[in-house]
């Protein structure tokens, strides 16, 4: 431990500011509150602050960030210019822990280069709390003091600071810019220990139980809809509680063209699960439609889902959510206490949660920049659906598995997740079948053969083709659900000998909405495939020789051995429940039912939070799921 006088510390800060190499950021007064901001001189620093309006995450994951810029005419993109390294002075321990939480999120599965570029080039100078906001409960979360995650850590000892050096980077900064730094005497070391103990007793909030029980408590409360409705009744869906949170990481992605309509920025901005449209998709379906369901999601995310994934409760107790919620319903301490008492009064015994086994792996970086590709064929199938054949400009194969999807960019408009509709056995190009419903899909429909699109992916878990080999297969497709299923179905047909009996049931609203009608006609003539189609109704003037009725009316028409058959189901959200019930009634085991799900998506790589159903990310863990794995997941079907 080192000691530096306050005057010398000021000189140190001024020296840093003077050296143009650094972006020097510190805590400053803003009205009667505090905020991190660029420092012009050391006098602006207010290390005696209680809490800042926004956490320092804004320097690593800014409110609005350009991911890259591209040329509207040809889609070619430029990298962001490099930014100066930063020194951030005055980070409280809970915010240091929060950054550690963010690191885990942004490095899991694939690493986010935008976040880590800034994170790795930044020096963190922490400070132990001298004041604590009345909402703060960091001591209960084990985040009031910290012995990792900083480069330097200050403790105010009156006329001097004690400095713990946490990294080589920190030590070097100190020896380069600070003068008269001495080794701490035993007395000062003792003082620091005493200060830390005081901090542990500073919180004005009080948990009535051990916070280690939170994940288990939540588990008991999920279905208590009265509980969530009561607590969320006054919720404004204003998102304040998540926007100010140092561990929230959800984002939206948008395209922003310049005025001359030449260059387009693809930006990401903070988003939040409390906002009404967070889980809403273009067809109008909202997977978390009510305030209580969204309100509940936030607590589960912090206290259960991230705990199961990373082994920590993703709340550091900063109290910002509590202080920013106008109806005063976002205070985790109050909510969890109430939950504890409610569960307790029911006589349910809850014990501390077992720390899960955590295995975070990073396979390379996320590429937010799409690869260029060209539309080489366009087949209009219905007034609303068109099949596009696309070829990668670099001549490469997309390299997808059946059931995977890609993020397709339409330049100037944005990106949308679309299933690959062709089987991997088709070489040289791939196909997507797109329904026009919103901005990206509408514009895509206006593109011509020869026009360029961007492609990211393939993403997600596809069908486990090897596990299906030799099995009997029952495909159940509703409407556009045929698009992802076709990638597997056509693969099966191409390698027909490797599979058992194959049935395709396909339904849509009316005959003119039938997709791939030519292929279907050919299928109907094949002796080695059983094919049945249905329409919900047949309006006057259209002709239809097949079944009339919803898709489930076809299921009794086929015979199969429930132990041998694997059912593969994809369709509009309402369809799954009914089809699965009928399959179960026919004794098909749960793990023989495979579904492909749709959710709102932005990043496609498990970061933005949009596609989440409870603890599962559809983009990364799905979109293809074995029913046995998700049947207990309440938000899934």
């Amino acid at each position, binding site marked *: 431990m080192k000691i530096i006088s306050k005057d010398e510390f000021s000189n140190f800060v001024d020296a840093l500011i003077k050296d143009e190499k650094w972006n020097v950021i510190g805590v400053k007064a803003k009205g009667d509150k505090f905020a991190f901001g660029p420092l012009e001189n050391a006098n602006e620093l207010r290390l005696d602050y209680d809490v800042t309006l926004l956490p320092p995450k*804004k320097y690593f994951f800014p*409110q609005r960030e350009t991911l890259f810029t591209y040329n509207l005419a040809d889609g070619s993109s430029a990298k962001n210019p490099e930014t100066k390294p930063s020194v951030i002075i005055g980070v409280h321990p809970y915010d240091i822990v929060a950054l550690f939480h963010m690191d885990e999120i942004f490095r899991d599965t694939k690493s986010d280069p935008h976040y880590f570029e800034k994170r790795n080039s930044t020096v963190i100078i922490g400070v132990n709390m001298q004041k604590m906001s009345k909402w703060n409960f960091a001591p209960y979360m084990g985040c009031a003091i910290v012995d990792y995650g900083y480069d330097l850590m200050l403790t105010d000892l009156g006329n001097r600071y004690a400095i713990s050096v946490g990294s080589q980077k920190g030590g070097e900064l100190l020896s380069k810019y600070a003068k008269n730094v001495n080794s701490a005497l035993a007395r000062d070391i003792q003082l620091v220990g005493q200060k830390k103990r005081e901090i542990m007793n500073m919180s004005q909030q009080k948990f009535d139980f051990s916070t280690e029980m939170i994940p288990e408590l939540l588990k008991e409360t999920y279905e208590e809809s009265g509980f969530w409705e009561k607590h969320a009744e006054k*919720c*404004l869906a*204003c998102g304040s509680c998540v926007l100010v949170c140092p561990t929230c990481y959800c984002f939206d992605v948008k395209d922003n*063209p310049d*005025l001359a309509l030449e260059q387009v920025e693809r930006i990401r901005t903070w988003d939040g699960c409390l906002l009404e*449209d967070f889980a809403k998709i273009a067809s109008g379906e909202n997977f978390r439609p009510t305030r209580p369901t969204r309100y509940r999601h936030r607590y589960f995310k912090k206290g259960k889902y991230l705990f199961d994934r990373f082994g920590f409760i993703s709340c550091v107790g900063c109290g910002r959510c509590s202080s920013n919620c106008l*109806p005063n319903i976002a205070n985790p301490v109050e909510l969890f206490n109430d939950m504890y008492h409610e569960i307790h009064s029911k006589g349910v015994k809850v014990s501390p949660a077992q720390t899960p086994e955590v295995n975070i792996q990073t396979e390379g970086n996320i590429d937010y920049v799409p690869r260029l590709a060209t539309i080489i064929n366009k087949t209009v199938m219905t007034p609303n659906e068109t099949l596009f054949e696309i070829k990668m400009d670099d001549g490469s194969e997309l390299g997808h598995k059946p059931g995977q999807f890609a993020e397709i960019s339409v330049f100037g408009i944005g990106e949308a997740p679309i299933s690959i509709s062709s089987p991997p056995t088709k070489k040289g190009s791939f196909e997507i079948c797109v329904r026009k419903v919103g*901005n990206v899909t509408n514009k895509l429909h206006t593109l011509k053969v020869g026009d360029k699109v961007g492609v990211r992916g393939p993403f997600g878990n596809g069908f486990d083709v090897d596990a299906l080999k030799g099995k009997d297969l029952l495909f159940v497709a509703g409407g556009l659900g045929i698009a992802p299923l076709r990638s597997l179905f056509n693969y099966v047909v191409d390698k027909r000998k490797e599979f058992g009996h194959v049935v395709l049931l396909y339904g849509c609203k009316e005959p003119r909405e039938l997709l791939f009608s030519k292929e279907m006609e050919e299928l109907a003539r094949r002796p080695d495939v059983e094919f049945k189609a249905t329409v919900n109704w047949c309006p006057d003037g259209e002709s239809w020789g097949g079944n009339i009725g919803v898709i489930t009316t076809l299921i009794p028409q086929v015979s199969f051995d429930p132990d041998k058959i694997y059912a593969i189901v994809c369709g509009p959200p309402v369809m799954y429940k009914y089809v699965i019930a009928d399959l179960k009634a026919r004794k098909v085991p749960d793990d023989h039912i495979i579904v492909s799900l749709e959710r709102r998506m932005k990043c496609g790589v498990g970061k933005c939070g949009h596609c989440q159903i409870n603890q599962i990310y559809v983009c990364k863990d799905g979109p293809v799921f074995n029913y046995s794995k998700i049947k207990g997941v309440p938000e899934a079907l």
Partner: protein
Amino acid sequence: MKPKVAFFDFAGCEGDQLQVANLEEDLLTLLGQVEVVSFREIMKEHNEDYDIAFIEGSCTRLQDEDRLKQIRKNAKIVVAIGSCATIGGINALKNYKNLDEVRQIVYGESARLFDTYAARPIDAIIPVDAYVHGCPIDRNEFLQVVKSLLLGKKPEVPNYPVCVECKKNENICAFDRGQFCVGPVTRAGCNSCCINEGTICWGCRGLIDNPNENSQKEILIKYGLTVDDAIGKFKLYFGWQEGKR
């Protein structure tokens, strides 16, 4: 071919067209992309051949309806600009009063000659393709909308409240400054500009789709407004949306 653009005004203050006329440099770049055929703020000529019609002001008289329908017929895209056009705006304040009284106040003796009815937004009369909310409109948002239309995209208007932008801008909440704000129920998109300047949100962009009005009113009262004043906060801009017709 550049799309032809025309501006129209109904009952409003023309403050929004002024915002557009004030875009200066940006306007020049923008004008490179469109051809303005009618715009009272900056030109005299008028032309009935246009693709995009920007309409300012609310509809306050039966006679206005025909003119609106004619514009809808001529234009491929109709854009409502400014609160009066998008949500009825401050004009709808008069909907709370007896209309005869309003006529009397505005026109005095000759009141009987003028026929006025509850002020309403443009989409109460004709379908509207895009909205530029605000009183006055935000120039940047106007540019965003024009860019979107030029690219064949439906402009995105947020369905979350002003608090979202306010938090991102790291403002001190009006309630913490002893003031009263309707940002929690007001549609964002202005980048919380008024609060950034140290004032409050008056609600000029109208209500979000599913506002929690009871909670908002309770908060206004909890922080010290009288019930009447809290209701008054809602009257200023939300009249038409609150069903005052």
